[in-house]
């Protein structure tokens, strides 16, 4: 018998626990020729804001040891053009479509969520609260429990669709932040977004990114992501989606065992577009080999007692 790979994130039923992460998978169509995107558990769109955004000046990406920095700067077509140009392709896809939402004010999050909730073809939202909060001096919404509560509660009130809150790792303690998201009505939490990082070109003595700092992703951050996912699962009861440096089946399993109900693959898509497909196959294979009937049995199965005597 085939192992059951289905998992539930709030009311979203995923055929398997592997999603493509926001900003690394465009609006889905970019990868449609390369992989069977309906084979995915789901995917998260690039962040959508109320108005179109230009994004940052190039260079916008640079490779670092086992990772990369990006400073795309939320370039996107804005919610209306998204609905007109991108949503028709997404509509009716046999995979969960989650729209990532960003903003500079609470009102912007609310407005985008409200507007998108009027449309068909969307299975849920992921609030990207790593964005700078203009009314709070540019610190990210996700960096204090108060601002998290504010933006999540307000958005919660504006939609009936499942709400995933995506946390930033650039905080002193993830626990109160995760709790604030849960208490404000989030159906799930996803983490981590990128770590703030920087790289310098020694020859020109300039930052390698035009925006000086950017977001670090890829295998380099996997240990940080795992520690935060584990801590979050110790703190809240809503499902956790693990993100950060997942490139293969073993990486995904580390997150599931640590308590994530599902995972997202970001940078891995760039390395190998087939990355998600290989992980899905690999999870099935792992379950078979280890006689695990359903993958949800693996979730949170981390053994903490020390092994031997002494």
């Amino acid at each position, binding site marked *: 018998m085939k192992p059951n790979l289905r998992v539930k994130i709030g009311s979203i039923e995923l055929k398997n626990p592997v999603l493509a992460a926001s*900003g*690394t*998978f*465009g609006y889905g169509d*970019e*990868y449609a*020729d*390369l992989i069977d995107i309906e084979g995915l558990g789901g995917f998260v769109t*690039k962040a959508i804001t109320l108005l*179109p955004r*230009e*994004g*940052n*000046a*190039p*260079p*916008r*990406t*640079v*490779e670092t*040891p*086992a*990772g*990369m920095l*990006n400073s*795309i700067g939320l*370039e996107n077509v804005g919610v209306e053009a998204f609905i007109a140009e991108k949503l028709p392709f997404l509509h009716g896809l046999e995979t969960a479509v989650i729209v990532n939402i960003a903003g500079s004010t609470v009102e912007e999050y609310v407005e985008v969520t409200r507007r998108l909730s009027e449309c068909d073809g969307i299975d849920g939202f992921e609030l990207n609260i790593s964005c700078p909060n203009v009314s709070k001096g540019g610190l990210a919404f996700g960096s204090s429990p108060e601002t998290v509560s504010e933006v999540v509660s307000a958005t919660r009130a504006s939609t009936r669709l499942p709400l995933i809150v995506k946390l930033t790792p650039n905080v002193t303690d993830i626990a109160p932040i995760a709790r604030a998201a849960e208490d404000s009505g989030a159906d799930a939490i996803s983490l981590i977004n990128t770590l703030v990082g920087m790289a310098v070109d020694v020859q020109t003595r300039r930052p390698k990114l035009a925006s000086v700092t950017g977001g670090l992703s*890829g*295998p380099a951050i996997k240990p940080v992501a795992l520690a935060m996912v584990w801590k979050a699962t110790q703190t809240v009861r809503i499902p956790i989606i693990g993100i950060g440096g997942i490139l293969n089946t073993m990486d995904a399993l580390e997150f599931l065992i640590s308590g994530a109900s599902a995972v997202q693959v970001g*940078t891995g*898509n*760039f*390395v*190998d*577009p*087939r990355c998600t497909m290989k992980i899905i196959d690999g999870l099935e294979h792992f379950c078979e080999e280890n006689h695990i009937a359903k993958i949800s049995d693996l979730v949170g199965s981390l053994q903490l007692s020390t092994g031997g005597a002494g």
Partner: protein
Amino acid sequence: MITQAVGRVLSNEQVAPGIFLMSLKLPWIAQRAKPGQFIHVRIGSQFRPLLRRPFSIYRADAEREEIQILYQLVGEGTMRLSEKGEGEGLDCLGPIGNGFWFRREDAVLVSGGIGIAPLFFLAEAMLGKMSSDDPRGRGRKVTILIGASSRDYLMRRKELELLGAEVRVATDDGSEGYAGPVTELLAATLQENSDRAFSVFACGPRPMLKEVARITVRRRIPCQLSLEEHMACGVGACLGCAVRTPSGYRRVCVDGPVFDAEEVIL
């Protein structure tokens, strides 16, 4: 349509100091590639390097199902690429990008350094060596201006002459041809040919492209530039490879890499 395929390395040889030519068996890509398109190559099997690296298609032979890339050693990725041996597999995405567009007009191609890679393919296509219907290049004139730091780095000159292109050379150190930047040679060439209609096609370092754009736009000569930018996905999804245009940023990978000189702000 972009596909992912593992190409077998058929050969991989140094052809000039620090410059390598690699042939790959890639039927799908070889049959569809157009000049100006590129492939996006995974060089390491693990994290070194992590991201793919883009290389222009230097030649494509549909019948033999082979493509070639011409690449320069600049860092770890290209270093590792140069170590690949015959028979090894290389994970490639391609063909990617719009490629050059051209009709039957005369053309001046301007190459700086490794910028020769997509232009050689373009010259070949223009001069009809690839199509059997008009083996003598349809009677058009193709002039190619090759710029390099010194004569040792002048590449593919004889091959271009054999194709029927007129080759002119500029070296920074004056060791061969015009002594100075290839853009000055372009200005001179445009001057000489001011009575004729033609288009300019250029690939090379950003400052060179900027100068080419300045020269051609001023004279209202149609000009296409093949751009480079750091690439993550290579398929249009990450928005990492932005180039500024009057109407906002565009993606070098799938909206380019070839842009009209008037279309971009360099």
